[in-house]
């Protein structure tokens, strides 16, 4: 697994503390995840912030990690990404959006309709993860929906996904593409 918490113009000490915390947490992840970590993004205190991220408050304890991320391999069209989100901080974290460079991404929930069939729709208010709690993104449940792939995602490939939190901070992780037959819940775009 990998992730990074990027900030712009944050005092060096805070950035270093956050990086240290992230490195420590990285040890909790599975060492065998094929989603390889990019050390340059998570262990670079003091380096200039990556472009495209917003400044966040100084709440370094509010840390979101992504464990065992994966994405369903697909030739085109829509697909979905999954993983276990963990909030190891002491305040709630809200994921408000997600992005990749190969598809627009929506945050989706899945629910059973009156006929028992599962359908999914955009998650109002994003994914809220309570302090010291987790949220499993999994087939049949909440997930990241890649709405329109600009190219195929092939099995074994690694896709970088960025989550944006309510406070503007971002969490980046690498999801490995798995061949997966399920996760075919019908999509109900008019969720209202």
């Amino acid at each position, binding site marked *: 697994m990998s992730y990074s918490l990027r900030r712009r113009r944050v005092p060096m000490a805070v950035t270093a503390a956050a990086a240290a915390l992230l490195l420590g947490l990285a040890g909790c992840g599975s060492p065998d995840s094929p989603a*390889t970590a990019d050390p340059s993004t998570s262990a670079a205190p003091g380096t200039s912030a990556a472009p495209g991220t917003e400044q966040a408050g100084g709440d370094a304890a509010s840390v979101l990690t992504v464990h065992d991320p994966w994405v369903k391999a697909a030739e085109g069209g829509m697909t979905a990404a999954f993983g276990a989100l963990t909030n190891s901080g002491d305040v709630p974290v809200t994921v408000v959006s997600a992005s990749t460079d190969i598809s627009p991404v929506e945050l989706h929930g899945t629910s059973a309709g009156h006929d028992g069939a599962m359908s999914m729709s955009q998650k109002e208010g994003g994914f809220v993860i309570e302090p010291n709690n987790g949220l499993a993104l999994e087939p049949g449940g909440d997930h990241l929906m890649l709405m329109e792939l600009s190219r195929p995602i092939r*099995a*074994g490939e690694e896709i970088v996904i960025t989550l944006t939190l309510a406070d503007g901070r971002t969490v980046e992780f690498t999801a490995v593409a798995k061949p997966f037959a399920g996760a075919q819940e019908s999509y109900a775009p008019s969720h209202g």
Partner: protein
Amino acid sequence: MSADRPAVSRRRLLTGGALVAGGALAAGSAVAAATGGRPGTGTGPVAHYGTDVEPFHGERQAGVATIAQAYASFVAFTLRPGTDRETLARMLRLLSDDAARLTRGEPALADTEAELALLPARLTVTFGFGPGFYTAAGRDDRRPESVAPLPAFAIDRLEPAWSGGDLLLQICADDAMTVAHAQRVLVKDARPFATVRWVQQGFRRGRGITDPTQTQHNLFGQLDGTANPAAGTPAFDTAVWRTEPEPWLYGSTTLVLRRIRMDLEGWDLLGRTERELVVGRRLDTGAPLTGTSEHDEPDFAARHANGLTVIPDFAHLTRARVGEDNQKILRRTYNYDAAPAADGTADSGLIFASYQADIARQFLPIQQRLAEADLLNEWTVPIGSAVFAIAPGCRTGDWIGRQLLE
């Protein structure tokens, strides 16, 4: 009996209430089994065999020096057309990750039957590369020379259904359920890259049934594997592991997998003495006919009063015997026992798995002698043959085959 079992309505099932309860029950019993606890039936603790782990990571792959598990599935694949080095790397990353998790007793990533992964039972997944793998990778120059189809032997009756293969996954565990789940996970992840060419499933004595280091009988009733070098000895390392400095060779070995049909009907026509003469060993102890215990040195010169050698010149033991450690092979064989025909004719035999550093130096001379003259040939027929390089192992976080592909 059904009175105290609450009815589960279809509606409740669909709305999830029953589903949650069922899931909790299943998870609970899995945990109970994994910890050796009582799952509620009062039958007492189970042995620890289910939770035993064989390490996946290391300089060498597991599943070779590993004490043979009770069940094996050898799954050979044919790479899809157009597979190249980059494709192979994606496949091996996925499969290595699956193997690393499953052998630890953890579900694979995106495992659809996660509960089945919790009891690894010494699961090993061993990766082998056939000649076609090297060609697809554009790495023919890195293929060990003797990892190639074997020369034809007069005794062979090879069937395509059991022969060849670009990639081999050897899946072994002390539990057939564990093997089945691992095979399902691995086949699903291999599917975008390769088609299943053949699967050979075999068995040995169950865990706890005999001393695991003891030589076991095959379905002819013979002790099979007496001459094996013992794991952990210099003789074993000399016979099995390659030591060239090239990273795609160091810590590797080779596998010759032969499917040997055994004619149990014909074997039935022999008396006990004849059976022992064919092999040159006692059926009960495995001792050579000139000795009293299994590992006694055979005396090929010993003769009866009538002048005949005690161990026949064409006995299996006489023909297969080699002296030097670097000429020995490691046999890690499994038995197969398919459904008999309507008239009861058996479809049984050996999945003969032979590991050696160099097929040309070790396996071929033995096989040549046996093919030329071995009394046992009368009752055995090789019907499948495949050759693979068993890649070096990998470290935690790494993947099998990287040394070859990168």
